């Protein structure tokens, strides 16, 4: 049977997790550690202890900024940033619902824009993301209204085009992704 540790070790960048000596340099270097349910050092310990549900349902990895400070400083070459991405991917693929952060919704809006256009259309991403968190926006109407000037400033400076750029090869890209999924699941 595949253990949770094996699953993480099999991900791109997760292979060095056993080298961790629990020194805590990652947590000490992480600008978001204080926002996380379990900071980086603890998450690594929990993965090795097989705590799949606790890890994958936590908000920790969704607070990763991909600043790579932990990775640059780790004395054992563990690459905690890539482990964070692997945990996000596992949580997403295994359908874990994450409370207390809208980052997964934002990422989904972003990726769906890539899949349909071949490029990111930032205006479209924002619209889709705000619709996905609509109930929260309605609860905080003042904060929501205060976001408008930011969008308007970007728009007025030609930085938020309303029209999406679509690549010619977007069908190709879809077929490549589809084929990759088939190859991966059959291996």
């Amino acid at each position, binding site marked *: 049977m595949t253990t949770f540790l094996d699953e993480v070790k099999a991900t791109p960048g997760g292979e060095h997790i056993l080298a961790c000596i629990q020194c805590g340099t990652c947590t000490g270097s992480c*600008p978001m550690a204080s926002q996380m349910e379990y900071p980086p050092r603890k998450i690594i310990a929990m993965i090795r202890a097989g705590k799949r549900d606790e890890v994958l349902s936590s908000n920790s*990895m969704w607070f990763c900024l991909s600043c790579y400070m932990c990775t640059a400083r780790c004395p054992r070459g563990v690459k905690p940033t890539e482990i964070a*991405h692997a945990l996000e*991917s596992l949580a997403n693929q295994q359908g874990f619902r994450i409370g207390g952060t809208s980052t997964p919704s*934002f*990422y989904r809006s972003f990726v769906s824009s890539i899949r349909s256009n*071949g*490029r990111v259309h930032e205006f479209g991403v924002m619209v889709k993301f705000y619709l996905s968190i609509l109930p929260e926006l309605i609860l905080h109407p003042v904060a929501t209204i205060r976001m408008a000037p930011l969008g308007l400033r970007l728009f007025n400076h030609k930085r938020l085009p309303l029209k999406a750029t679509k690549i010619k090869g977007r069908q190709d890209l879809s077929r*490549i*992704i589809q084929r990759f999924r088939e190859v991966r699941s059959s291996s």
Partner: protein
Amino acid sequence: MRYYSYFPGCSAESTGLGLGLSTEAIAAPLDIELVELEDWNCCGSTPYGSLDDEESIVVAARNLALAEKSGFDLVTPCSSCYVTLAGANRHLQERPKLMTQVNEALAVAGLEYKGSIRVRHLVDVLYNDVTPEFIAGEVKNRLDGLKVAPYYGCQLVRPRYGLDDTEHPHTLDDLVECLGAEAVNFPMKARCCGGSLTISEEKNVLELTRKILQSAAQNGSQCIVTPCPLCQTNLDAYQSRINARFRADFKIPVLFITQLIGLALGLEAKSLGLDTNIVSPREVLDYIYNRINYVTTHPTEERE
């Protein structure tokens, strides 16, 4: 003339329009030819790798395969595109099994990737190929006396691709100084600005952005320069939100390094997309143009 495959990145057409315009504008004067990768797709960036880390590699790989046809190094001015494309490239080069799977998928579009491409950041090309010495020789308007805070952000220098020190980098400082400007002491120059989480976690990350503005302002800089379109948007477009939230009074223009280089090369502000900067760079431009007038009307003093 040096040739490169050019990957502008999605933001070069939108939030980072100034980066796209100024990168293309400075290429010819610096004797480099950026051949845009035909029909490139989004690199995937952090969000794709976070939802499906393996699938994100195949998305990046389509670009690597397209670039391999020309054989030139693949250059991007965007730090996020750089870390994503370089990371995917490294995974593919180190993992033969993944490379085989990816190539099976690419084959449906008649593509193949052998793993021979080098992915490079524009700052790497400016520093190591063009070189600060060459740029200095092409400068038409020396920026003497201009105090600049060079902001590296994260993904230009980390995780560790050997371009620069991961915590005390100097490449941007050197590029700023070869224009005649002064790179101020800027302790936060390689700390995170909050990245893309300013969108989904603004209340938790705006403090990070504030600290960077604070560090730059404390040291008397007249502007910040960065190569990263996401950092630029956070520091520039969010500056008024930071002022409101923290009762601060920041008014620091945030230029792309390519815009600053373009000004020193004597290119027009408009062609460098300086009208897309939200915190007005007017005072920086006045400083530069007043200095040019001063130099042309006081030629003897300048020589001393």
